[in-house]
């Protein structure tokens, strides 16, 4: 039993959830870019699939070719579906999470303009990469004698912010290459690494390990060769 003055609850600081998120106008643009890239990648393959379907329906396939062709087509389109999430849509998550990547994509503003009116999207991209891997294109700027080695990047377990400490020569006396940026590949397939190589860079092979900056999971390697 209690006696005394009636008590009341403390005044609430608020009475409803705060569900809002900081508004970022860049989000829509980034998503738009990823969506458009997705369209370009799959659009052409849809057309190829439709062509194949029409041929089958019309019966103008050579019987001996049919199983193999269909199997190949099956695998390629299935692969493309996987890539649709592996490369394009997962970039949405990666982009939204990684301010550096966002800035890099913003830097690609001209590529965000739509394709020519009335015409289908750009030419189909190169063949799809193997399962659970992403094509890594290396774009070298500066030194005309330097070129990047294309490679495959393991698909991260979750949306990742890519990081690389630099590209290093086996000869520790040679200077390393720093300031590498990652952006979605303009063709919509995979990721591009942008490496600035000064004219003064000594000849040799320079390589480094690409990691998920959050988990430190190793995802692949990047190599640049500078010719003599």
């Amino acid at each position, binding site marked *: *039993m*209690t*006696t*005394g*003055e*009636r*008590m*009341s*609850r*403390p005044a*609430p*600081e*608020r009475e*409803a*959830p705060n*569900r*809002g*998120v900081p508004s*970022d106008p860049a*989000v*829509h*643009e980034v*998503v*738009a*870019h990823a*969506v458009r890239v997705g*369209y370009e990648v*799959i*659009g052409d*393959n*849809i*057309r190829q*699939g*439709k062509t194949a*379907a029409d041929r089958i*329906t019309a019966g103008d396939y050579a*019987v001996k070719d049919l*199983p193999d062709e*269909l199997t190949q*087509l*099956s695998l390629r*389109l*299935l692969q*493309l*579906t*996987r890539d*649709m*999430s592996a490369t394009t*849509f*997962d970039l*949405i*998550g990666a982009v*939204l*999470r990684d301010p550096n990547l966002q800035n890099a994509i913003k830097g690609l503003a001209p590529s965000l303009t*739509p394709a020519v*009116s*009335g*015409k289908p999207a750009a030419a189909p991209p190169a063949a799809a990469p193997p399962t659970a891997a992403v094509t890594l294109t290396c774009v070298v700027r500066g030194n005309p004698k330097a070129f990047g080695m294309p490679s495959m990047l393991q698909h991260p377990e*979750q*949306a990742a912010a890519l990081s690389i400490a630099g590209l290093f020569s086996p000869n520790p006396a040679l200077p390393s290459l720093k300031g590498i940026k990652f952006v979605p590949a303009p063709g919509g397939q995979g990721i591009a690494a942008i490496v600035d190589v000064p004219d003064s860079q000594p000849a040799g092979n320079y390589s480094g390990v690409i990691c998920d900056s959050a988990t430190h999971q190793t995802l692949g390697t990047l190599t640049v060769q500078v010719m003599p």
Partner: protein
Amino acid sequence: MTQGSQSVQRPIEVAVIGGGCAGMTAALELSHPKHGGRFTVTVYQEGWRLGGKGASGRGPSGRVEEHGLHVWLGFYDNAFRMMRACYDELAATGSSPYGDWREAFVPQSVMGLFATTEQQGWQKWVGHFPPRSGLPGDPQTPGEMHSLPRYIAKALRLLRALLIETDVHRHGGTHRPADDLRDPNKLLAAAQTLLGRGVFTTAAALAEAIGLLGTAIGMLAAPFDAAILQLAGKVAAGLRLWLETNVLAEDRHRHVWEIIDLVLAILVGTVRFGLLTNPQGLDAIEEYECRDWLRLNGASERSLKSPFINGLYDLALAYEDGDRDKPRLAAGQALRGALRMFFGYRGALYWRMRSGMGDVVFAPIYEVLRRRGVRFRFFHRLTNVGLPGKGPADHVASLTFDVQAETTDGRDYVPLRDVQGRPCWPSRPDWAQLTGGDTGHDLESHWDRHCIRTETLHVTRDFDFVVLAVSVGAIPHVGREIVAHDPRWRRMTENVKTVASQAFQLWLTEDLARLGWPSPPDIVSAFVKPFDTWCDMAHVVPEEEWATPPATSVYFCGVLPDPAELPADSDAQYPERRRLEVRDRAAGFLAETARHLWPNAYDAGGKFRWDLLADATGQTPPPSGPERFATQYWRANVNPSDRYVLNVPGSSRHRISPLDNTYDNLTIAGDWTSCGFNEGCVEAAVMSGLLAAHALSGLPALKDIDGYDHP
């Protein structure tokens, strides 16, 4: 009056009314040592046990008898955190009934769904959801909090995983013969199969993708070329027609593009409705019915009828009035729930309890509370929350109870009994402790008003604060004065809907593998109404006290349609009539429908083998034939407080928050309140209990209630 409780020196008396998850959470918080004894808590509970809709009891042979089928999803962080703390507190005193909490909750990663096939058979889809790092209830990693962009990325990863990992088994229907490629006709069939397997099931998804992505592009700010969209639309439309005609009748593959279709619709809708940046978060679409919203964003009719969507409704019992033709689920919360369920779990997708929910959850909570000095008043049925007779109606002035029973010696009722060395709740009161012995009354029935006396508590004399933690179904009965006085409360009771449910449990002498069920023990939904959801509970049997343990037990549940007119409070036989309905329906289910699940449970003549049912009652000889079903357990959850809380479109805005301060010594708690996760489930109840505690004490901080500020 003392404004705020900070200046009060004496302990503050809190009356917690209702011993379900919400009330117990509030009691645990307010009695926590962090408050230094600032609150003195008394729990008032009708009948003999805690648990509310999560109550369970031990029947003959110590068998677990539940209200329904309960699983804890892997994103129930607040609920798991509470239970982990309880188990830790008991372990510190050497009295934890199961040791570590992980001994009491069993992780599960497989979920099954059913769909009818074009050939009128049944197709079962099995989803394997891989274990994820962490455990539910772990602290959230900074930066890993809930955000829609993260969900988008996760949704697409799941999509890919499903493409790769989904496993389909067909039951019934027609199987294709092996293909002979030398026969041109069979070759064509083989081509169709190949197409269906790899090309055009995928292409269907791609066709959907292109159309939906086109919609997304059109909604975005950037100026995209309309001609491209038109072209894309034509390609997609033509191909979709081709696929619908030629390929998608192949049942085996349809689930793949159904998922893709749904995921894309969600993605499109997320962008289209500006959900990524909307200050209301997903509440911005709370007025939409879930299927309508998905349809609006391009989901196909086929996908909207898919087992995934059916399962979403079935698991949420989302049928207004229990009518299967009235599926109603608010889009915002449905999406929030689905996103959290599939992308927010830690450890495992869901966790089953090792024993009854009463034993695993409420017995440990009771023990912790009792050790902290919380008082329990069982057999107290609330009949009225009284407002002041004069002056402003700004607080609760009295609480009136029907006292249903009293102990013979005047001491506190001892509610638990040991089964297999663990404290458990019995399915019946321990009449031996009570005056008058077994009165034959059902002390949990709304229609049995047995009462030996009434008791009225008065503010300042008997309580200071009230946590009203009964279910919303009971509010019109116990909160008549507030409902009559306050239009908001009236609108809440009118718009926050509840549904009756039905459940039955079987104990079988053969395990499900022998009966023809080919999959691992999992939860299965989207099956035949009304018992559309069921779960193999073999792991519970060792916790029971059988002389000859059965091989397994299986729990079924589903909604129970309401009658055209609800019964009068004086209709004492109503619960029993509904119970008999459930019994007959369940027995009929076994006699016929269960053959789709367990073909070997039927003899050569196609009759159910009733002797598979293990008899816990020990009758000699046990009943035979359909009469044997009487040895199993079933129930109709028709009591107002037992009814499952729905979230129908447009109802969320009528919910009242536990933080609402209209009545300055009252807070409410339950999964029917505006608690941030407005869905009938343990997590919502726990969140509301935390909010109620915050309302009275300032703790826990709102930022520490996981998911309260979820978009």
